[in-house]
């Protein structure tokens, strides 16, 4: 078990290093120059040279990389090209919002996806099964920004049930602030859950169908266990394992979806920061955001692995 944990942790560190390296070189290989975005017109060669020096872009690429890695190991993510403030400061401002949105979507998807998948499998061929399949396939094809705008138009503008964008009313305090937060969270959360839920429920349904045909399930039934106990205690436990792995992998998609969701809903998270920083080619900000997200996804997958290990005795003992 110790070997399992050690291998996973080392693999996580390697993954983060690879993500950091790819991000660093990918940004610099873009056929664009961040200094050109600072002023439109009237950019003298001297001003451009001064900016390149200020941004540290005048040094050879490998030197820039070495300097960046050195600073990163010291926990310094650099200073934003455009905002002139430490990247870590901005990210810490934005991260809680993304954690709240993506974390809530992650949890809700599991809480709703499990019963949906289970009931579809148990009621195979029945109305519930067909509904889940149609929903799953449709949801899988949805495009986040389109759904987001549709939700805003229907529930925000036409019905007036939810606010149009933003994360909270900054004038509220205490309980009202928490209620405002939940009120603003509802639509972006719904749009993210909607697109995640389909694939998750379908995967769980397929796994459940496989598991329900296994001998040990039949054996459990023949021993007199109730169908309810057989399904929820024995079948689900085994059907959950691949679904858990899927959720770990889907976290990356969830974070990617958050970039679009946060932009449309004017939600002040890391996703929107990435959208804004791409437009400005703010390398330090983009690097910092991607490192942060890579760490988040890798850690979440690490946790998923650990949970799988707890649920699956074969992993524990191998």
């Amino acid at each position, binding site marked *: 078990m110790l070997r399992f944990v050690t291998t996973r942790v080392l693999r996580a560190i390697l993954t983060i290093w690879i993500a950091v390296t790819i991000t660093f070189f990918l940004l610099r290989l*873009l*056929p*664009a*120059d961040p200094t*050109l*975005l*600072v*002023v439109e*017109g*009237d*950019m*003298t060669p001297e001003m451009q040279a*001064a900016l390149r020096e*200020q941004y540290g872009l005048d040094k050879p690429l490998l030197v820039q990389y070495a300097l960046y890695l050195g600073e990163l190991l010291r926990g310094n993510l650099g200073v934003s090209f*455009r*905002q*002139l403030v430490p990247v870590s400061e*901005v990210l810490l*401002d934005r991260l*809680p*919002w993304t*954690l*709240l949105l993506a*974390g*809530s979507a*992650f*949890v809700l998807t*599991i809480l709703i996806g499990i019963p949906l998948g289970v009931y579809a499998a148990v009621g195979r061929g029945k109305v519930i099964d067909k509904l889940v399949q149609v929903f799953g396939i449709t949801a899988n094809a949805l495009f986040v*920004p389109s759904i987001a*705008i549709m939700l*805003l138009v229907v529930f*925000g*503008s036409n019905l007036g049930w939810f606010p*149009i*964008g*933003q*994360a*909270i009313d*900054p004038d509220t*305090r205490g309980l009202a*602030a*928490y209620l405002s*937060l939940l009120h603003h969270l509802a639509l972006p959360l719904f749009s993210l859950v909607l697109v995640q839920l389909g694939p998750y429920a379908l995967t769980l349904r397929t796994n459940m169908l496989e598991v329900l045909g296994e001998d040990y399930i039949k054996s459990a039934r023949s021993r007199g266990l109730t169908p309810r106990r057989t399904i*929820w205690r024995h079948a*689900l*436990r085994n059907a*959950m394992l691949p679904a858990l792995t899927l959720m770990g992998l889907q976290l990356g998609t969830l974070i990617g979806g958050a970039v679009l969701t946060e932009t*449309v*809903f*004017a939600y*002040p*998270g890391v996703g929107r*920061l990435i*959208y*804004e920083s791409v*437009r*400005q*080619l703010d390398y330090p900000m983009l690097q910092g955001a991607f490192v942060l997200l890579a760490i988040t996804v890798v850690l979440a997958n690490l946790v998923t692995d650990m*949970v799988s290990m*707890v649920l699956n005795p074969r992993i524990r003992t191998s």
Partner: protein
Amino acid sequence: MNNGTRRLRALTAVVTAGVLALTGCGLNEGNGSTESEGGSTASSAQATLRIGTTTDVENFNPLQSLSKTDSWILNAMYPHLLRIDENAEKVPEAATGYSYEEDGKAVVFALDERFQWTDGTPLTAEDVKFSAEAIMQYKLGNVAAKLTWVESVEVRDENTVVFHLSQPYAPFAEGVGFWMPIVPAHVFSEAGDLSTFANDADWVGAGAYVLDSMTRGQRYTLKANPNYPHAPEGGAAVGTVEYVVYPDVNTMILALRNGDIDLMGTPVPASAAASLEGADGISLETVGSLGFAHLTYNVTKGALADQAVRQALSMVVDTKSIIATILQGEGQPMVGPISPIFAQFDNTDLDAYPFDPEGARELLEKAGYSDGDGDGVLDGLSFEMVCDQSNANLTRVAEVVREDAAEAGIQINLACVERNTFLARTRGGEYEIDLSQWGVFDNPMDQLRSTYLSSNPGGINYNLVQDAELDALVNDAALTVDEKEFVGKIQAIDAYVHDQALLTPLYVENFRFAYRSDRFEGFAPSPSDLLGMVTGYSLAQVTPVD
């Protein structure tokens, strides 16, 4: 429930609680928000005007070059010597006027002594001198280029500042007066290196509104400056201006419809304007532009060096139809390179190139071009046209021009690419035809210097033209201080560039700004989306609807 499920539920509960605790900790109580401690920005006015903006403030230091959305907020805080009125004319803001001495080599600004900073310190000539010298020292932003000829800045007295130039430059006062923000010397001189000064708290301004607090990612709150001298008698009726961030313009439109905001700072896209026309409580204000869309020909590339080819290309562009269909009528045609918004440089005597693809083909055949291989394209007349794909209007223009050019035997290959790639390509000269839109030219002289001088001082001579005659015309006009003579020389350059067909001007786009006319009225808009409805002066004139 089995152990695994129980553990999973426990885990999700912990994650949810943790996230909520993280986000909710000190919810709305200083979390991510900054409040100014400096200055007295209190105002008796109660009205709050909410404006939609597309992005957070990137940089609060007005001396650095800034994004358009930054300038909406910072221009309201830090006054300029001159501002641009609704007719694109420069009129006094912090200066009461200017004059030239020493045959144009000394430019004298008289300051409006009523201006004072929000901490009670008067705005003086020392502040102007400090701002100009800081920009020159640190080479900050595009204003640095406008101060190229400044040898020294003299404080003649508390309210008079003199710029001594190495040579006369006709539009110096207008350019520097409009573009250079004035910062409080007593605050910024304490900030150390101004090229890295973030200026993100404790703001002291002298404009119509000054930042009071912000919640990054969401909202920026400005309070009216009770000492702003250009507000109506009794002070601005709008006491608080809030900028609310909506990165997606469709969401911003919904917020306006819903009454969450009162004004969209960004123009309404042509495709959405129709849906807002006639909407309850919403009005659209049409504002001109200080820039224009154009096709610019890289004369270093093959047949584009040939004047006849450039003229033929100008004849395959149907600007009237483009304005009618793509801009849905919200634009003005142009003839030469000087925009009709600068009425004093009237160039209506020039004959526009007619839209005539057949005539263009005849012109080319007369010039010796032929279709030797019978593929329908005149030999040597295949060009790549680059454009910024984020500009929906221009990508549509590109398609129209390509089809019309084919009729004249000219093949155009489109390369509409991502904006940053487009900028890198145009700066690197990697294009044959550049289809783009100038943002803001506040005066024709600066425009002509930047776009046509062989020395390419601003890096935007996208023709890459090296024309000694044109250089001489531009340099001569730049030295001319007499206004009438100056106008004549600018008109002559306009005619020369038009005849050379160095560019095909497409249109001056009208911007349409949407606002809640059931709540507010009295905006004083200025041309361009840089200024639009949201200048400090404009906001100070706004009154709530009873």
